[in-house]
């Protein structure tokens, strides 16, 4: 199928785009890489009256260091640019490691970093990474710009804190603390398919080798990126023994996410199993990278 007819705008600046958004609001959709929106329109699951194409706004595509040692990624940066960026590899290694997990090279050539986060697909990697790293996003509209913290950004299935007259302009990640480690893991039926379950882990160790930072975020298990706070809390103050990690992963499955989504791709029981298995693996690797044997 092809989409029903729509009006098309290709603004040349963020200001112009924001003006169009202010004018059309709920009737408009922003076109970034189009890797989710266009198929959705072709299947007529989305029928926007107006399409605002962000692909001709050069000011939205960049990867820059941030003052605090972190990075700033313009929303229209293509996945492939982030994947190949030396700055990202060095300053945001979890993002560097996550990029190849996203779909296929063809999709990464076209799909955008900001688009993926604004789309908030529950099976997507980047929302979970944003949450795990404690990043934030800049929303811009005709009325100005504002920053939204990751943990206030994702509101549910394909739903974010962006207002209808706002566009996502920039994603910012802080520097990793000292003695921190990270990992990204996912299982798909076939490489490049949506993950059945995925997880991002960020951990830190104190001088005595005990855990002083733990964040664990799953994806493809619920309505959006799904943190496992109880599992993380159980690790704080602990030495990262194999038993401690297994217990934390167990807690993620039993307490944090006891009812993962069930669908045609996997049952809830399989997802619970993968929450445990992947959680433990991710924590193990994260602690090894933080310098503590797991």
């Amino acid at each position, binding site marked *: *199928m*092809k989409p029903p007819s729509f009006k098309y705008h290709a603004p040349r600046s963020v200001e112009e785009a924001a003006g169009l958004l202010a004018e059309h609001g709920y009737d408009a959709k922003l076109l970034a890489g189009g890797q989710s929106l266009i198929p959705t329109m072709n299947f007529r699951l989305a029928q926007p009256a107006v399409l605002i194409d962000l692909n001709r706004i050069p000011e939205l595509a960049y990867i820059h260091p941030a003052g605090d040692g972190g990075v700033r990624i313009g929303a229209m940066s293509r996945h492939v640019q982030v994947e190949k960026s030396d700055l990202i590899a060095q300053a945001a290694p979890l993002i560097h490691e996550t990029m190849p997990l996203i779909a296929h090279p063809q999709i990464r050539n076209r799909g955008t970093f900001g688009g993926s986060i604004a789309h908030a697909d529950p099976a997507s990697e980047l929302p979970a990474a944003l949450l795990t790293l404690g990043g934030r996003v800049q929303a811009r509209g005709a009325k100005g710009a504002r920053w939204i913290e990751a943990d206030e950004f994702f509101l549910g299935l394909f739903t974010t804190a962006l207002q209808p007259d706002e566009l996502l302009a920039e994603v910012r990640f802080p520097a990793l603390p000292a003695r921190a480690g990270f990992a990204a893991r996912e299982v798909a*039926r076939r490489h490049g*398919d949506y993950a059945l379950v995925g997880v991002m882990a960020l951990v830190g160790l104190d001088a005595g080798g005990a855990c002083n930072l733990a964040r664990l975020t799953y994806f493809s298990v619920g309505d959006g990126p799904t943190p496992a706070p109880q599992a993380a809390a159980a690790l704080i103050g602990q030495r990262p023994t194999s038993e401690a990690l297994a217990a934390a992963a167990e807690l993620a499955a039993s307490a944090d996410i006891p009812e993962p989504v069930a669908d*045609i791709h996997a049952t809830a029981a*399989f997802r619970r199993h*993968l929450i445990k*298995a992947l959680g433990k693996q991710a924590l193990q690797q994260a602690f090894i990278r933080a310098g503590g044997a797991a």
Partner: protein
Amino acid sequence: MNDAVKDAVKNRQPASLIGQRITKLDAPEKAAGKTRYVHDIHLPGQLHAAILRSAHVHAVIKRIDVSRARALPGVHAVLTAADIPGEHTHGIVIPDWPSLIGVGERVRYVGDALAIVAAETREQATAALDLIEVALEPQPVIADPVQARQIDSPSLHENGNLLKHIKVRKGDMAQGFAEADLILERTFHTATTDHAFLEPECSIAQPTADGRLYLYVGSQIPYADRNQVARALGWPDERVRVVGQLMGGGFGGKEDIAGQIHAALLAQATGRPVKLLYDRHESLIAHPKRHATQIRVKMGARRDGRLTAVQTELYGDAGAYASLSDKVMTRATTHSAGPYETPHARADCYAMYTNNPPSGAFRGFGVTQSAFAVESMIDELAEQLGIDPVELRRRNALRVGSVTNTGQLLHESVGLLECIDRVDSEMRRRAGNDPFRARPTPGQEHRVRAWGFAAAYKNTGLGGGAPDRAQAEVELYEDGALEARVSSAELGQGLVTVLQMIVAEEFQAPLDQVRVLVMDTDLTPDGGPTTASRQTFVTGNAVLQAARTLREGLVRVLAERFDAPPSQIRFVEGLALVNGHTAPLGEVAAIMKSEGHSPRALVEYWAPATQPLGAGGDMHFAYSFAAQAAEIEVNTRTGEVQVLTLIAATDVGKVLNPLGLLGQVEGGVMMGLGNALTEHFILEQGVPFSDRLARYRIPNITQTPEIVVLHVEHPASTGPYGAKGVGEIVSIPTTPAITNAITHATGVRITRLPVDQEEIALRGEGRGR
């Protein structure tokens, strides 16, 4: 020509092309993206068609109102069943498939067509579909073949839901099981799968000034298309010309009608050329699939591993219409005890109509399904008897002198033992003497590797008493070109190259002096269906005979003209050598014409006769054999399976073009791998979930193993140069080789396809690996 060259030509031994690696003629242009398919054809004044499909799984049509659609600007015709001038149904074996479902008639699956539209643009045609009003009365849905056989299920066709009960009987089952030291019984399920050929269906129908209709289409059976289109139009066959186009894959999925009749009806109604192109969604929903099959196997063996009895019961999901179900499920049934000799065998298959998309031909033709079941059982038998699974297969393998379950004495060309031995020794060379033992990766004990083994056989040709013939014509032109003409289909498998090689070989002419014309019902004689791994054998033989007949004609004329004995006349490098004279082939053509002979030969080749199932004797004129071994790695935590290596040995009688065979093996293995691990056309109460490729998982390059290709050549005396079929056999053992490897690695028995990652992860968990 100077004397030196003459001498060189004279003394040269004819070099055989057969067995040389020949690049397919169309390979460079395909690689460069220059190949033209049906959709690349744009005829002047061409309209575009669209089909209103049921979307209901089972319903009775109460009303169809097309008046608003007809009034839409740009629309030239909207047709319903009432507008069909000729026969309303089509079907290759049983014509039970309505081209359009009329008022008062029954919709039997979501892809059934209710109305067709031709408009100036594709967009207008699609828009018109939204304006057609349909009222229908939903009926209870039959979603699987076992349910279809229950007494209280509604009848989908006049004669009920049983399309066919297929029986194999050999020996005495009671005696066979009484003689067994061990009896195993298990039920297996295979999934509905799709061919997922790259090129979706496209037909262009063109009315001609002289009142005929030309049809441009990629079809595996051009003459069957011609016949079915003509019948729908109420015309004699000859009034329709099918101009077959190169296909972007078929795999059995382009045997049935898919758009040809609709395009023809619209072209006839409008007087304009009409293009009907399926998009992927429509292609997936509409065309026949591989039969989902339930297979129960009961197998008895003595302590020494010799089979005493094999009993199978199959339920095949034929879907809404017959398509080739009768033949496919017959092959599934006759091959259901595997490539082994057993004194007592019984098989019963129930091919059942359901409300799922029709099932039809798909590379392997039913044997893919039963091979999975029987090869899994053979492995389990080996384990329980404590016999090496390769050795167990060796002890029971069909060989010359064996009698198959249908009562056929195999008198030649049975290379199964050599296939088994070759794969076994290559496997053990790589893996050592205990390849089937689970090997956890040191330091990563949840990653476990193991090998699996499987064997298979598959008939070449239609068999079962069906007349299996091909006509072919070979002509020599005065410019020296040789042309072979036959309607058989090139779908990427390399038939054209094989035919080119055969003609070049027979005349000892350079390859580029030979051209091959295929798939045109006006210009090429009927080569029969491109199915059943038959074209190299049947059409190959037809072209070979035509070439030899023509060559003999040349020899006769030359012998007379130069007063030489025929035995002294030779052909080398595109030249005829006679009595010290050399004449280019084109000159010989001119001589023949001048003497009133036509430099061409038309033959009709009949493959050796076969017997119907139940009659005993030769049910098929040849079989190909194969063995494969797969090394896999399982992640027992996540259930992920990676195939690392696949060793494939195939007895194809004689390898005509090793490069073509390589392509067949690699493609076949990947299809078998998909069938094992990822491919599942998911239906929910007859409604396809897998209505796009994102929801139908074809394996990709990251899943491609190292594929080792071994040739085994046990010539078939009646095959061209000894060759027999290859298209299907290469794909059949792959699935069970992989699933047997998974069982060896994890202890989890795989009884359902595709392999359930969840089951491996959940059941592998407690095993301490």
